[in-house]
Structure formats: C-alpha cells, structure tokens
C-alpha cells in the first residue's frame, strides 16, 4: 500500500470547504457548531497526512491538540447554546446575534 | 525694512486686543478694530513713503532666520503688485468693519479678532517670499474665515463653510506638494535645502516636471480665484457668510488667487505657463460667460453677486495668461476694481438682508421710493460692475481683452460677449430689486443708508472713478517684479521712474 498524502490533503480540502459551506449557509447555531467540528477534523486530517509524508509523530501530536481544542470548543459552545435557548431564543438563529439584547 | 513685519504683526496684535476688549464691553472690540485699521493704514502709508525712489522693481526687503535646519526664513519682499494689493486690503477692511460688524451681537470680541487675523494672513500672503512662510500665511487666512462663516453665517452656514474649507484646504495640499517637490528638486541639483523664492526660481526643471509642479500651484490659486470648474464653493460661501465675511472674501481673498497666479505660476514657471496658456485662456473665457450666465438665473441676490464675481475674475485669468505686461496690468486693475465694486455690492446686499430679512429677489421690487439712497448706491455699483467706461472695471476689462486679442481674437470676442451678459444680469438685478412695484401692499418704513454708509460707499465710488479715469499710478505699480533677470516672460515696458503712487 502506497501512501498518498496529496490525496489525503485533497480530501481534507474538500471537507474543509464543505464545513465552511455549512457555517456560511446554516443559520441554526447547532448546525454551525457541527460545521465547525467538520472543519477542525479536516485540519486534523491535514496534519496527520503531513505526518505520514515525513514519517514523523508530530502530525498525530497536532491531532491530539486539535482534539483537545475541539472538546473545549464543543463544551463551551454547547453551553452557550443551551443558555441562549433557555434565555428565550428558541430558534437559535445566529443572525439575531446582532441584537445585543435578549 | 522691518516695517513689513508690522503689516502682519499689527493686525495680529489688534486681534488679541480686540479679543481681550470683548470681555470688557460689547462695543469695545469694534473701536479696537477701527483703531488697528487706522494704524495699519498709517503703517502702510509709511512703507509706501519710505520706498527709495528708483530703487528697482523690488521696493522693500526684510529677512530673518526661522528654522535654519530646513532652510526656512522669515523672508518678506514687496513689489508694486504687492503694494497695490496691500492698499486694496486696507481699503476694503474699512467698509468691512465700519459698515458690517458694528452690530454683531454674539461674541463681538472673537468676531473682530478673527476678522483681523484674516487680514493679517492676507497681508502676509502679499509679501511673503519664502514659500514655507507663504504657505503658512495661506492657511492663516483660511482658518479664521472658516470660523467666521461657521459661527456668524446665515441659515446654511455649516455646509457652506465646510465646502469652502474642503476646497481651499484640498487645493492647498496640492500646492504644498508642489512646494515640497520644487524644494526637493532644487536640493538634488544644488545640495542646498531652501524655501527661498528667489533661489528656487533658478531651479532648472524638465518640461514635464515644471508642468506638474505648476499645475499644483495653479489648482490652488484657481480654486481661490475661482476658475470655473472649481468655483462651486464660492456661491455657497458668499451667500452664507456674514456680510463682513462676504466683503472680505470677494474683495480681498479672491485676489490672493490672482496674486498667486502671477507671482508663483507665471513667474516661477514661465515656460510651463506659456505652454499652459491656451487652456487657461479657454478656462478664463468659460468663466466669464458661465459666471455671467448663471448670475442671470439666480433669485438669491448674494448668489447673483457671487456668480458675477466668477465672471469678473475670468478676466483676471485671461489677463494673467495673456503673457504680456498689458494683460498683467489689466488683471491687477480688474482685481482692484472688482474688489471695490463687488465689495460694495455685498455691503448693499447685506444691508438689504438686514432690512427685509430675505435675499430672495422674487420678494423684493419697488424698493427705490422706500430706500432711495441704498437703491441709488446699488445702481451705481451695479453699473460699475457691468463695466461702464470711465469706471475702474472697464479699464481692467479693456486692457485684458486687448492683451487677449493679441494672443487669440476668438477668446477676446468671447470675453467681450461676457460684457453683454454682465449688463444683462446687473440690470436685471437692479430691475428686480429696486424698480417696478413692491410686492403686496408696499414697504413699511425701512431705515435708509445713513451718513456713515454713504460716506464709505461714496469713497469707494470715488476710488472706482479715479481708477477708471486716471489709472496710471496703479498701472505703473502693477507690473510684478521678476524673481530674477534670467527668465523674462514679460516684455517690460518703460515704466515712468518715480511715478506717482496711490
């Protein structure tokens, strides 16, 4: 089996672009958070692919870091989301975020 | 001659005194301003008198170091052109203060201080020969006037003042760039960093560079003069300014544009100016016709006079770029005559506004029986404005047209056509304001011009008449002194040595 870092990077690019599409298109905060998870994963894939190309463990170290970041982001983001929902914004519309008052 | 500094410092000191006096009593600043102007006239008379006879075209010099590291000095020189315009400034300052500013109610101290500061700036512009110092004075006369308009102007003053400031400041920036460019080029050539007018005049410039630098100066002065596509600030500003501001603007500040064109465009870049002359002549003719045409269409009397200014100053542009002594002399006479006649017209328009609380010609008419003296003076100055021979304006216009005819008869014909239009708007203004029957049921008792107004305006009329019938002293003085003898764009005619001076 041959390694194909270019293909992996291409896959990462496609996932990243899809994630971006999701962030830009969806108005629901929950879907935006999911899209962000996708983008983070795409980045992680790129790191891993790069690590494979150079036969180094650094790529996977970076993946671990991204994992930690994603965990923290998901925790805080979901907490805020719940909070907004509880504060009377049941639609979770991101476009109403510019109305600074609940 | 150290007295040249006095011409600037005296009004500045007067400004400070007026401001302080304003805190004591509301009438005091007016007296202080009058006293300052009297002293200034005396000082100018002394300067005129002290000029050595036959001492060359430059009449007085003074210089002192300012910022030696940058080659900036406090250098002032005066020639006949400067002297004539200084006298015009002093002469027009009197009506400003005597007739228009006595009844200023809010903050009279500040008002007179700003007025005197403007006069100081104008005086400085007419004598400074260090380019940095010149630019300094150029800005000095702008800012106080801006404040005058913003605070004491009429209903739409903020917008008008802002427009005035943007146009003048923006074009002033171009001039600053040109000044710096010239200085840098000169430093490259000689290794000497200097802002001195006489030294910079010797800089050798390639034709495109000279044209570019000249255009920077030209735009600044063209805005001030104003030349037609750049005139749009003027009607608004003149209309909205307080009467004293209008008089000072029309009478004196516009002249700094004409002065700058002669001193810094034509004399500093003689070759570029010759190449640019066709464009400038066309702009001048355009200005004459366009200004007159629009003046005819105005309902606001101050706007009408403002557009007539645009038309009159088109002649100045023609004269300056006609490239002959004749045209220069005509331009200077035209500037002086325009200052007197249009200044007086603004006094009259301001007086009308004070009495009727409108500037709208559609709401005037039949004022002659109610205000015979005011109407008569209005008629007289309107006639001067339309260029009746025997009054100063005609001399200027004729000399300019003659000089233009030598260069380009079609342009001169267009200029002469402007005289027809000037008659049209001047007489229309008179007809609509003073003649005919009053709107509604006649005018209630209106206060006519008193002795003070009649005396001052009569003096202006006498000056115009003198300028129209015996302009030789002004003509002799009006030829600008050249920065150096190498380039002689003007065929200097024999000037009568020691001729009489005003």
């Amino acid at each position: 089996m041959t390694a194909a870092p270019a293909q992996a990077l291409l896959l990462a690019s496609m996932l990243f672009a899809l994630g971006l599409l999701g962030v830009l298109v969806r108005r629901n905060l929950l879907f935006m958070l999911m899209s962000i998870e996708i983008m983070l994963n795409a980045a992680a894939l790129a790191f891993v692919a790069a690590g494979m190309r150079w036969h180094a463990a650094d790529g996977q170290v970076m993946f671990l870091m991204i994992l930690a970041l994603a965990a923290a982001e998901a925790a805080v983001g979901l907490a805020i989301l719940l909070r907004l929902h509880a504060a009377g914004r049941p639609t979770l519309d991101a476009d109403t975020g510019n109305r600074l008052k609940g | 001659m150290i007295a040249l500094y006095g011409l600037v410092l005296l009004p500045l000191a007067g400004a400070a005194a007026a401001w302080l006096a304003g805190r004591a009593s509301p009438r005091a600043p007016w007296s202080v301003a009058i006293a300052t102007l009297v002293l200034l006239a005396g000082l100018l008379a002394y300067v005129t008198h002290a000029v050595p006879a036959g001492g060359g075209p430059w009449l007085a010099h003074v210089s002192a170091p300012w910022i030696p590291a940058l080659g900036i000095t406090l250098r002032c020189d005066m020639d006949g052109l400067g002297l004539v315009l200084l006298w015009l400034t002093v002469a027009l300052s009197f009506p400003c203060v005597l007739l228009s500013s006595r009844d200023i109610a809010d903050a009279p101290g500040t008002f007179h201080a700003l007025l005197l500061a403007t006069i100081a700036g104008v005086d400085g512009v007419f004598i400074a020969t260090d380019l940095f110092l010149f630019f300094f004075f150029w800005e000095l006369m702008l800012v106080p006037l801006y404040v005058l308009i913003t605070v004491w102007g009429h209903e739409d003053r903020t917008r008008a003042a802002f427009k005035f400031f943007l146009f003048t400041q923006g074009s002033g920036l171009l001039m600053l760039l040109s000044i710096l460019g010239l200085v840098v080029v000169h430093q490259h050539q000689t290794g000497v960093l200097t802002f001195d007018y006489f030294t910079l005049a010797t800089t050798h410039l390639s034709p495109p560079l000279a044209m570019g630098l000249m255009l920077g100066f030209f735009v600044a002065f063209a805005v001030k003069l104003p030349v037609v596509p750049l005139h749009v600030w003027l009607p608004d500003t003149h209309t909205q300014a307080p009467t004293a501001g209008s008089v000072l603007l029309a009478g004196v500040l516009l002249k700094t544009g004409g002065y700058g064109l002669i001193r810094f465009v034509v004399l500093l870049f003689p070759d570029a100016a010759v190449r640019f002359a066709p464009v400038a002549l066309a702009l001048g003719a355009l200005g004459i016709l366009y200004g007159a045409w629009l003046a005819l269409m105005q309902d606001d009397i101050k706007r009408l006079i403002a557009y007539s200014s645009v038309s009159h100053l088109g002649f100045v542009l023609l004269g300056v770029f006609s490239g002959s002594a004749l045209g220069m002399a005509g331009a200077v006479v035209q500037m002086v005559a325009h200052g007197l006649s249009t200044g007086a017209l603004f006094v009259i328009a301001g007086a009308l506004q004070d009495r009727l609380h409108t500037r709208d010609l559609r709401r005037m008419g039949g004022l002659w029986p109610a205000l015979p003296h005011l109407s008569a003076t209005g008629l007289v100055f309107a006639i001067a404005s339309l260029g009746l021979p025997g009054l100063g304006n005609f001399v200027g216009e004729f000399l300019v047209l003659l000089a233009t005819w030598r260069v380009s008869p079609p342009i001169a014909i267009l200029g002469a056509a402007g005289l027809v239009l000037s008659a049209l708007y001047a007489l229309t203004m008179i007809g609509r304001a003073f003649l005919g029957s009053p709107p509604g049921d006649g005018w209630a008792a209106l206060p006519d011009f008193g002795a003070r107004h009649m005396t001052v305006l009569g003096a202006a009329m006498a000056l115009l008449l003198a300028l129209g019938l015996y302009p030789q002293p002004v003509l002799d003085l009006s030829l600008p002194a050249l920065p150096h003898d190498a380039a002689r764009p003007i065929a200097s005619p024999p000037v009568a040595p020691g001729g009489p001076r005003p």
Partner: protein
Amino acid sequence: MLALLPPLAFLPPLIVLCPLAAATILLLSAGRMPAPATRVLAAGAVGLAAVLTLWLAVRFLSAPPPTHRLDVVLWHWLRVGGFDARIAFTLDPLSLVMMLVVTGVGFLIHLYACGYMRGDPDVARFFACMTLFVAAMLVLVLSSDLLCLYVGWEGVGLCSYLLIGFWYAEAANGAAARKAFIVTRIGDAALLCGLLLLATRAGGLDITMLLQPGQPGGPVAEAAAALLLGGALAKSAQVPFQIWLPDAMAGPTPVSALIHAATMVTAGVYLIARLHPLFLAAPTIMAATAVLGLVTLLLAAGSALAQTDIKRILAFSTISQLGYMFLALGTGAWGAAIFHLVTHALFKALLFMAAGAVILRVHHQQDIFHMGGLGRAMPGVFAAFAAGAAALAGLPLVTAGFYSKEAILQQAWHASPLLWAGALLGAFLTALYISRCVFIVFLGPVRTAPTGRTEASMAIPLAGLSVLAITGGLIEMPDAIAPVHLLFRLLAPVLGPPPAEGGAEGGAGLLLLTGALAPLAGIAMAWVLWRPRAGTAAPAAGELARAARAGWGFDAAYGLLLVRPFLALGWLNRRDLFDRVPDLLAAATRWGAAVLGRMQDGRVRRYAGWIAAGTVAALCLAVRP
C-alpha cells in the same frame, strides 16, 4: 490769431464741463434741491454750453486754424505695454456741427422739459440724467481717441437706460430700458472688438493716427469696419438691432426728443462719418451699410404706417430716417448723411416735442385714433407739428428735410439706381405715414377734448425749432436750385471735397423733380385715405397691418430663437451643473460608507464569510504571487 488760440483750446473742455457739473451737483443734492432751482441749473448749464458753443463756432469759423482742427489733450489715460490712450478732444468742423446740434437742440429740449416735467417729484433725477447725457454726448463727438469716444458712447447708453426707465414704478418701462441697453450693448461689444482689432494693429486708438493714409485694406480692414458697423447699427437702431427704439418711447417725451431722435441715435452715423477712410478701405462693408440702411428705411416706414401710438409712429419714423443716413454713408455721401442728421435732429425733436405737448393736453392719451380735431384747440402746436411733419415728409423747396433728403437721393442715384428707387419709395411712404398722423390727430372730429394750455417754456422751443425745421435746409442746396454749399464746404477738411453733382446735364434736374414729386404723391394719397370725415376712424386691420404694427415680427423671432432658448437652458442649469460634481463625490463616499458599514452588522455568518473571502484572497496571492 495767436492771441485767440489759448482760450479757444480752453473752450471745448469747458463746454463739456458745464452740463457735467450740473449733473454732478444734481446727483449729489439727491433731490434736496428745490424744483425751480433744479430747472434753472439744468437748463442754464446746457444753455451756457450752447452759448459757449456758438461763441466757439463763431471764433473757429472766423479764424480757423491752418489744419482746421484744434487738439486739446487733457491727460494720459492709459499708458502700458505699448498701448497708449489719452483723454483728448479734437475740435474740427464735424465735431463743431455735432456740438451745435447737441447743445442747441439740447438746450431747447431742456427748456421744454422744464415745462413738461413740472410737478414730477423726481425732477432732479430727471435733469441730472439729462445733463449727464449732454455731457456724455459732447464727449462722444469731441473725442480724438476712440477709447475716449467709447466712454461717451457707453455714457449716453447709460443715460438712455436711466431715462427710458425714469418712471420705474411701471415694470414695462424698466423692461424697455433694459432692452434698449442690452441690444445696444451687443453692438457696443462688437464696437469694442473693433477697437481691440484696431488697437492691436496700430498700437493705439488715436483717430488721426488710425486714419493716416496708406492703411492697408483687405480682410483686416473689412473685419474692423464690420465690427464698427455693428456698433453703429445697434446704437442707431438699424436692422437687425432696431427693436429697442420703439419700446424706448416709454421714457418721458423730452427724452425721446433729445436722446431717441436728435442726438444719441445719430451717434452711429457720426461714428462712421468720423471714421470714413476706414470704411472706404472696406467696399463690402460699405455696400452692406447701404443695403441695411435701405432695408431699415423701408421696413420702419412700413411699420410707422400701421402704428396707432403717436410716439411709436415717430419712433419708427426715426429708425426710417436713420436708415436714410446709413444709406448715404453706404454710398459714400458723408456730407449728405451729416446734413440729414442735422435737419433730422431739428424736425424730429420738433415733432416729438409737439407730440408731447399734445399728449399733455389730452390726458396722456397717445393713441391717435382717440385724438382728432386738435388743430382748432391748439393751433400753435398744430403749426409746429405741421412744420415738423412737412420737413419730415420733405415738402419741396420750403422745408429743411427736402434738401437733405434730396442730397441723399442724388448720391444714391450715382451709386445704384436700385438704391435710389428704394429711397424714393421710402420718401413716398414717409410722406404717407406722417400725413396720416397729421390728418387723424389734428383734423376731423374731436374725440378727446383737450384741456389746459401749453405753457411758454414749451411753446418757445417749439417755435424756435419750427423756424429751424423750415429754414435749416437753406445752408446746403443742390446746384439745380441754388449753388449754396455752406455745410459741405465747412465739412470738406474732414469729410473730403463734396461730391460732384450730375452737373448741368438734364439728369440732375429730373432727379430733383422726381424727388420732389414723391412726397407730394404721398401727401395726396394720405388725403385720399385718411382725410377728415365723419364717423370714427379705426386702425387698419388685416395680416399685413398687424405684422407692420408689430415691427415685422423681429421681436417675436428674437424671442423665439435667442431669448427663450437662452433662458430655458439657463433655467435648467440654474442650480449650476458643476455644483453637482462635489455632491456626486459626496454621494459616492456615502454609498461606499454604507457598503463597508454593512460588512460589520454583527451577523456572525457575514463575518465568517468575510474572513473566508479574505483567506481565499490571501491564499490565491500566496500560491500564485
């Protein structure tokens, strides 16, 4: 003779100064002077000028200087850049004749105005302008420098403006005054261009210098002559500038008599006569002058025939008579033109003043069809008007107008029989329209009863001018009647030797006879058409009469072709096109601010979008530099 010279040089400026001083005093008094003093001052000043002019004339003619001219340089006016102009006077026979007309007729009219303007509250303003006019006119005829002449030229225009609009409360009067000034100003601009051309060529505008023999002809001379002709046409109300004069009748009648009949309108004739060598070098322009004169003469005579307002009849008549003068100038008959100028000044001033006397007596009624039978109520005025009318019609042998018109007809015949025929037709029409006026106004049934009396100060000038209008022609007669050539011989040093007449050949006599018969035919025809009969007379109806009454539609055409488009365009642009440019810049800035501002509206997705866009842009730049 030498002892006489210094005071002689002193006289012309003094004569100008008399009315000028009166005008200055009247202006400065600002109406505070009592009315009688005003009248005495004005009439006295002009009278003094007339007396001094007479004295000057006597001395000048009894002991003429060897060159027949006297130069008085007052001061250098402009001397700069190779151009030199002086305020200077030249007294020569031509200016002497003009001075005599101006001061003489001027004095009589001032005298008349003392009566006419009695009771007007603004009499000081009136006399100030009148005396100022006399001064300006004297400057005009005396100047030895064209630029100085131009001062007088515009000065009389200004006074004309002020006096036409004298009764300013009526808006129409102001409009008429403005129209007069603007139309003549167009001509003045042309004249100014002519001066510029001449000054550029010669370096100065001294008339003697300009007229030195050996001036080149060609296109430059043609252009200069054309431009000067433009000025003259406008001032003298010739086609195509004639439209201002009928409206100018809005002014008081003495003004019409002095300015719009006797003096100012003849300034164009004087100018061309004065500069005739220039015109001789431009044959095309000469021909144009003659043709325009003829056209004017016929058109105006036709218009006069259809008018109903007595002053407008006289105004069109003035235009027509000035057409005779231009015809004469165009054919090179300078002396004849000046001769007609003089006689016309006499009889037309007379006609106007008589008409003014009539108008005062019939309560400011000016429509001739509301007058009638006035001859019985005011025989003196009738006699004066009849004398003037006879002179205008050119009643053979007994009137001044006959001799001057005869001189022009003679000259026209020599230039072209066609011109002569036109002029003859004009003479017929002249007699026709003025007889119509006389018959309708003074004969027949009374329609408006006159009241009051014509006071002495008005009657005396009428009498004096009546005598002059009858006898004034005797100074110059055709050879076929009597070889009297006082005027032509006097003017010869300026205008060249008088033209040779047809001589003893039978042609001259025949011409004379034809010229004498034409007015008689006109009067006879007028008698047939408008002789006094019972019933009411009415103005002619019909298309032709209406067109003639409206001055052949020149006003309407100019309004439609020039004034309206000009004003309409101006109205469209009254807010100043260029003023929109900064507004446009401001709008662009505001729009840009709005667009950029919308980028930061607090919507997370937009922010994300902009971040992504920026990333893409940066990436593209980084990948493909």
